[in-house]
């Protein structure tokens, strides 16, 4: 994955990190600047654009009716998909989703699902027959590293912005009425990703760091500071001590972001 240029830079990146500094001027525990805009796509039920430094992700939500899963007949359905749009990076190619976009979608999905962010029990229209299906589509518009955190933020921001159609059931048929209510949410998980370079953990790795880091770990943290989802990625490893350290950093950073965003 790593280009020749970044491999030459590896030594420089490593030396800086050993001193607690980074190539883009941040400290090892600092996030890039975060900007969130909501509701830019009028035709979507909800939408949000997140800028994490130069990384840009747009998420749109759509709500439709459909059948529930047989094992949860009284609950609405959440479906997350991610597109690594070719215009976002020279390394993205058109075509069916590859393992990277599937993994991204599943990490975002797990953060929302396992923290029970959406009150799915309130999305039931007719038990076992008809429920609301929430589609969360992640659109990566510019890739400058840490797509996971940007996508997870954008997904939750879009859900916060999502409107549910009013409806009534007439003779077993669902009729959509005018007007909207907000989507019932119970939690706002925040996902924090750490990269490991030469044994050091850095928060929010950007593209050049991603190309030289040997592994990453992402943790979704809820309001209570509990962990709801984890994913290790990359071809390296973590020592048990590093995992516990990563857990502490993730919980601290999530609380910090939560305060900053007012979530």
């Amino acid at each position, binding site marked *: 994955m790593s280009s020749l240029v970044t491999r030459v830079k590896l030594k420089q990146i490593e030396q800086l990190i050993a001193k607690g500094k980074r190539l883009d001027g941040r400290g090892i525990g600092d996030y890039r600047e975060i900007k969130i805009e909501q509701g830019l796509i009028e035709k979507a039920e909800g939408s949000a654009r997140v800028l994490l430094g130069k990384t840009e992700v747009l998420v749109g939500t759509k709500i439709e009716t459909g059948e529930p899963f047989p094992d949860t007949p009284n609950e609405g359905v959440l479906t997350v998909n991610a597109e690594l749009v070719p215009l976002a990076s020279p390394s993205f190619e058109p075509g069916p989703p590859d*393992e990277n976009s*599937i*993994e991204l*979608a*599943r990490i975002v999905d*797990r953060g929302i*699902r*396992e*923290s*029970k962010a959406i009150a799915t029990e309130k999305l039931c229209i007719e038990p076992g027959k008809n429920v609301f299906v929430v589609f969360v589509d992640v659109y990566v518009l510019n890739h400058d590293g840490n797509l996971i955190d940007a996508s997870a933020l954008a997904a939750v921001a879009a859900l916060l912005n999502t409107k549910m159609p009013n409806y009534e059931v007439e003779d077993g048929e669902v009729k959509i009425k005018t007007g909207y209510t907000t989507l019932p949410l119970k939690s706002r998980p925040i996902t924090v990703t750490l990269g490991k370079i030469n044994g050091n953990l850095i928060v929010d790795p950007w593209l050049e760091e991603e190309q030289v880091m040997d*592994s990453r*770990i992402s943790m979704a943290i*809820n309001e*209570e*500071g*509990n*962990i*709801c*989802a*984890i*994913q*290790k*990625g*990359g*071809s*390296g*490893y*973590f*020592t*048990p001590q590093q*995992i*516990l350290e990563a*857990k*502490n950093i993730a*919980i601290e950073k999530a609380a910090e972001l939560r305060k900053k965003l007012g979530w």
Partner: protein
Amino acid sequence: MNEKPEKLIDKKGCRLDGRKADELRPLKLEVGVLANADGSAYIEHGKNKILAAVFGPREMHPKHLSLPDRMVIRCRYHMAPFSVQERKSPAPSRREVELSKVIRESLEPSLFVELYPRTGIDLFIEVLQADGGTRCASITAASLAIADAGIPMRDLVAACAAGKVDDTVVVDLFDLEDKLGVADVPLALMPNLNAVTLLQMDGILTPEEFEQAVNMAMEGCKKIYAMQKEALKNKYMAIKEEVEEE
């Protein structure tokens, strides 16, 4: 469909399948089970039945995927249509694509990829029967298959999950516990190097519970590691006995 049990752990601390919180399911490991593969292994972990095979290091097909400075690892985790209660379509699901990726990444740190430039190895994992914890059992078997192929390794990779069922942190969840439990933490470990190569989690855990689950999963990995070494030895002991008989 069975009724959902009210309690997954009884008053005596016994789980639905009779195990204690820190007890693993019975394991059976066998090495060198497939004639055509360069290395292979079979695992029975509780009701999980999984075959793993490795081919290579060999020339990459297609050739343009090979890398000038290292070996490429390809991995396919696949579930047989009859491996679960309701037939699973044989086409790869999104879950299988993700698991193929994390399994590959959990085994990669154990290999000296830089020693085999321009080559590739293919890892094929077939889940014949699934009962919770298949990704861990797959890693355990695949690592043995790599060792069986005689590919140099830094260490064997052993994998085991821990999680929370009712209010208790337990090791090695089976299907029902995985589905009805609170949280699941699959973990892979290279015990000699103290290196965690796979870590995932779903469900909600407090930081303290998470720490406990990680420690429990690592203990499980160490037990499985001992069985892996035993399985490798058994293969060569059998060969030795055969040779001595002749």
